[in-house]
């Protein structure tokens, strides 16, 4: 039964890749990345193996913990869990819950991330080569470690995977925020450990020992304990590891059972008369598109998470600058997130999915559609950019730069949206459907998304360069005049690009509308 499900999983993958050469290219790049990462990890472990027991214990314990945490967070933020086969889809088949869970565990192990993790964990054996006891213990504990990775991701996914779960999406957004902040959190932790002059070995040791008692890394620490002759703690940690596995299994089991008895969707009565943005829009195609676009920006996690980034990125950069925010450089911290925010809807039509048919059916003029979408995105993004600007400028204490920063930030937002008004009339890429897990990974997506976005970022940067140059003059001269000029130029260029984008994109859209719908059906089918 497990073998059948596994074959099914590979068949689905094969069909998906055969259908689209682009997805195949992306998939190959994914494998190349995994192989490269794996080689580096294996090499590093061998080298560390030569440098003493303490070093190996530290690295394996921390590395293992990061693996388990990564696998647990992946279903929330990266769709890292394999969604080709799900418990709900296996429900009609005569399988017991145990068989379903076993099959899904094996499927999780058999994907690219699973294989890479297993090989990476096995390469830790190389590091233990000098200690026979550890080698023997590793042969048991490392597979258990890999198993806890898979079970952790399945257990987490079984919470978030419930369709339309607003709670699930909220959790996802929270996890996403935390993940974005891991860099600063880690630097902060390391800063506590290290002082001004590098790492303090004793403190690192203490952290590793403490960490080894937690469920995420107990299993990884056992071989090292045994090698050091610490049998008591070693066995106790093995107990923790086994208990963790049992707990994860039971938790996952509970959710699988619950999912099999509860309906997939429930309709709750909602009151009438709540038109929200739709109720505020002036009549006409532009107004209607604006209201729809704004409703999605403020309600759909696929858009919403980008607004979270704008709020979080300045915090991240502040960490990077070691909290030295009282500088002119920090005043401009909002410009980068604003620029990125402007480029978010660069494949806006892809996010519609086949619902785009209802736009096309109204016979909307391209210019109205472009304008509605652009205004919707601007209404959602501009207030946030203004608030973040005021806060960051206030923190930097450089009030004279406020107009310049506003000009650069809003200009970058407008210029980006202008670019998107054109690009989204051409481009259709596979994206998660509305209501799907926001972070669902669409195979083959990341490579091309990255490539085209890089190009648009450059173009957007060029548009905002004049305002930035004037802002720089304001910084160096301290004159308010340059600052105000930067505001005028930034807004002027941004508005110009936005208008041009609507006009050009509108003309493209008029010709390409039906083709876009055809390509949406071909790429995603929903």
């Amino acid at each position, binding site marked *: 039964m497990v073998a059948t499900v596994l074959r099914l999983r590979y068949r689905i993958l094969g069909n998906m890749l055969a259908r689209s050469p682009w997805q195949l290219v992306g998939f190959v790049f994914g494998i190349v990345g995994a192989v490269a990462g794996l080689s580096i990890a294996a090499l590093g472990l061998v080298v560390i193996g030569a440098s003493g027991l303490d070093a190996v214990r530290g690295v394996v314990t921390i590395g293992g913990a990061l693996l388990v945490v990564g696998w647990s967070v992946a279903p929330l933020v990266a769709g890292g869990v394999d969604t080709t086969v799900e418990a709900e889809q296996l429900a009609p088949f005569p399988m017991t819950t145990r068989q379903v869970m076993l099959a899904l565990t094996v499927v999780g192990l058999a994907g690219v991330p699973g294989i890479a993790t297993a090989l990476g964990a096995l390469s830790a054996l190389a590091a233990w080569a000098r200690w026979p006891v550890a080698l023997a213990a590793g042969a048991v504990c490392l597979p258990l470690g890999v198993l806890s990775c898979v079970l952790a991701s399945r257990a987490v996914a079984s919470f978030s995977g419930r369709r*339309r779960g607003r709670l699930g999406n909220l959790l996802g957004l929270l996890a996403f925020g935390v993940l974005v902040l891991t860099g600063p959190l880690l630097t902060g932790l390391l800063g506590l450990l290290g002082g001004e002059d590098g790492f303090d070995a004793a403190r690192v040791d203490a952290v590793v020992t403490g960490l080894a008692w937690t469920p995420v890394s107990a299993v990884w620490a056992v071989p090292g304990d045994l090698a050091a002759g610490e049998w008591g703690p070693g066995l106790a940690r093995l107990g923790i590891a086994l208990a963790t596995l049992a707990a994860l299994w039971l938790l996952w089991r509970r959710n699988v059972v619950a999912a099999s008895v509860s309906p997939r*969707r*429930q*309709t*709750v*009565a*909602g*009151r*009438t*008369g*709540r*038109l*929200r943005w*739709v*109720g505020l*829009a*002036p*009549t*006409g*195609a532009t*107004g*209607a*598109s604006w*209201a*729809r676009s704004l*409703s*999605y920006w403020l*309600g*759909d996690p696929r858009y919403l998470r980008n607004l979270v980034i704008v709020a979080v990125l300045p915090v991240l950069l502040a960490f990077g600058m070691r909290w030295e925010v009282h500088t002119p450089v920090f005043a401009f911290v909002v410009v980068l997130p604003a620029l990125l925010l402007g480029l978010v809807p660069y494949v806006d039509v892809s996010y*519609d*999915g*086949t*619902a785009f*048919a*209802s*736009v*096309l*059916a*109204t*016979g*909307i*003029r391209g210019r109205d559609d472009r304008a509605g979408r652009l205004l919707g995105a601007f209404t959602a993004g501009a207030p946030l950019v203004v608030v973040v600007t005021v806060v960051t400028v206030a923190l930097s204490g450089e009030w004279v730069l406020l107009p310049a920063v506003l000009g650069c930030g809003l200009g970058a937002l407008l210029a980006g949206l202008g670019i998107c008004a054109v690009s989204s009339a051409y481009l259709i890429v596979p994206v998660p*459907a*509305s*209501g799907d897990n926001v972070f669902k990974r669409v195979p083959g997506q990341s490579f091309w998304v990255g490539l085209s976005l890089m190009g648009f970022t450059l173009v957007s940067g060029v548009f905002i360069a004049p305002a930035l140059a004037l802002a720089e003059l304001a910084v160096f001269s301290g004159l308010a005049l340059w600052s105000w000029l930067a505001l005028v130029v930034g807004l002027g260029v941004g508005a110009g690009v936005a208008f041009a984008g609507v006009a050009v994109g509108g003309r493209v859209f008029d010709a390409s509308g*039906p*083709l876009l*719908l*055809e390509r949406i059906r071909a790429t995603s089918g*929903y």
Partner: protein
Amino acid sequence: MSTPAAAPVPALAVAGLSKAFGGRLAVDHVELAVPSGSFYGLVGPNGAGKTTTLSMATGLLRPDAGTASVHGVDVWADPAVAKRMIGNLADGVRLFDRLTGEQLIFYTGLMFGLPRDELAGRTADLLRLMDLGEAAGTPVADYSAGMTKKVALACALVHAPRLLVLDEPFESVDPVSAANIEDVLRSYTASGGTVIVSSHSMDLVQRMCDHVAILAGGRVLVAGGVEEVRGGASLQERFLELVGGRTHAEGPAWLRQS
């Protein structure tokens, strides 16, 4: 039917409509003339090309060859004008399902530029007609299949189009709502509106429609008045006779229970 000297402009006329997907001809020179004020049924087996034909006729899918015009306006030359006259219920597409049912109908009305105060009344009427009052404030994503179909139908009606193109309108709709909708569509055609409906239910087409076209393999096998097409037999019998593929077996031996 007798044809007057100056033939009235049909509500929908398609000529030589063709479309190929990956080398396979899905729609092959389809010709249809849907008279104004008629209730026109489009039937055919799965994969006959009904949805593809309707998509091309309503400006959602560009044909490889052929023309489509609505009340004399070429759909592909002047899409904006043609589409204002069409109320379209497409099959197999999503809706903007993060909006509530009420928001979605209101939004669709705004797209067609209806005045807001007029629209409030129409939205309330449509919600009542579709029996969606209870769920009006619920996101369409949470609707059942039948409720989703009904709200999509409401969106197709909201701008009072001259031509309604309904692809599988009664699929998974409950019998009470279906009967109510049927009444409304009847009085709509009686007042001069035109309805084209694609369906797999021969009984429904025979009961509701005055004209019918049978499609198979991307071609029109027969088209005309319902009485004329079925020629004394039931539409179901006539359909099976024309399309073929009926097997009179008892099914495979392994499926029989005794």
